[in-house]
């Protein structure tokens, strides 16, 4: 393949890679949360403040957002036929996901401030 246009294959591949990461992350998160004794906000901050947990969670958030973007893009491409409306919905979805990314990123950064 010439590698000029990889919109289809890249999207498909990233959707699967992020799904795999999320599977591992969620299984580990379930174990960590089961073993950790979390009673209040301070316990949450202490847990998420650990570098490994923080990095894994940041990657998890990125994976959720990327996975969500590809999935929603697929749905929009399937069902929204008029090109201008499709572009508009794509834009709205992208903006929402970027806002979620910024918000969740801010929460993680504040833990280390």
């Amino acid at each position, binding site marked *: *393949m*010439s*590698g*000029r*246009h*990889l*919109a*289809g*294959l890249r*999207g*498909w*591949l990233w959707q699967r890679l992020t799904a795999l990461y999320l599977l591992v992350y969620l299984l580990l998160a379930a174990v960590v949360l089961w073993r950790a004794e979390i009673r209040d906000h301070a316990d949450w901050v202490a847990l998420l403040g650990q570098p490994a947990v923080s990095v894994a969670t940041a990657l998890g958030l990125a994976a959720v957002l990327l996975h969500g973007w590809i999935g929603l*893009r*697929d749905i929009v*491409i*399937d*069902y929204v*036929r008029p090109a201008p409306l499709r572009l508009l919905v794509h834009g709205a979805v992208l903006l929402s996901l970027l806002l979620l990314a910024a918000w969740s990123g801010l929460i993680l950064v504040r833990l280390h401030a």
Partner: protein
Amino acid sequence: MRFSIYRYQPESGDAPSMQPFELAVRPGMMLREALLALRDTDPTLAFRHSCGEGVCGSDAMNVNGRNVLACTTPVDGLKEPVQIRPLPGMPVVRDLIVDMEPFFRQYRAIQPYLQVNDPLPESEQRQSPTERQRLDGLYECILCGCCSTACPSFWWNPDKFLGPAALLQAWRFLADSRDQGREARLDFLEGPFRLFRCHSIMNCVEVCPKGLNPTRTIGLIRQMMLREMG
């Protein structure tokens, strides 16, 4: 046996409707024979058919919600009234006859013929038994359209998504040891529409009257793309 058949006569100006029919069927009768008998009673009933043995792929239609070949579908066991409609998602020309042009346009798009850049040999281009075996489950496709017209992705984007039949044929040539057009073929299939609208719903596998598996071949194309990407 009671039938309910989709009728559309464009010159009448009437909207399409379902028309009830009744027929005394005999044991072992195939649906194509039943339709021929019904047409004797109503010569305006239009449907395509030819070989009568599941080879030409002309008489694909939707029976009780499932795409089938009428000639290989026994009437025994069909739920009554047997609802017979044209293939879903295709423009109806008349009654059960659809315009197959959107289907064949996508088939033509994958360039369904060997592409050889080297000078052609004096005699035949030989294949080993193993190379030939790779074409099993691919060359048997009769292009009836049952699979593509059962595919929701093809319903939504028939002009952009190639559909399972054309993609099975795309793999048939990608898998052929004699073909030298791999890079161009894979480049053509790239992008969000032509191949990647497939969401592995597998209606195509469910309805294929020849028992072929287009979903598997789409997966094989993706694997080939991944290998070529690296």
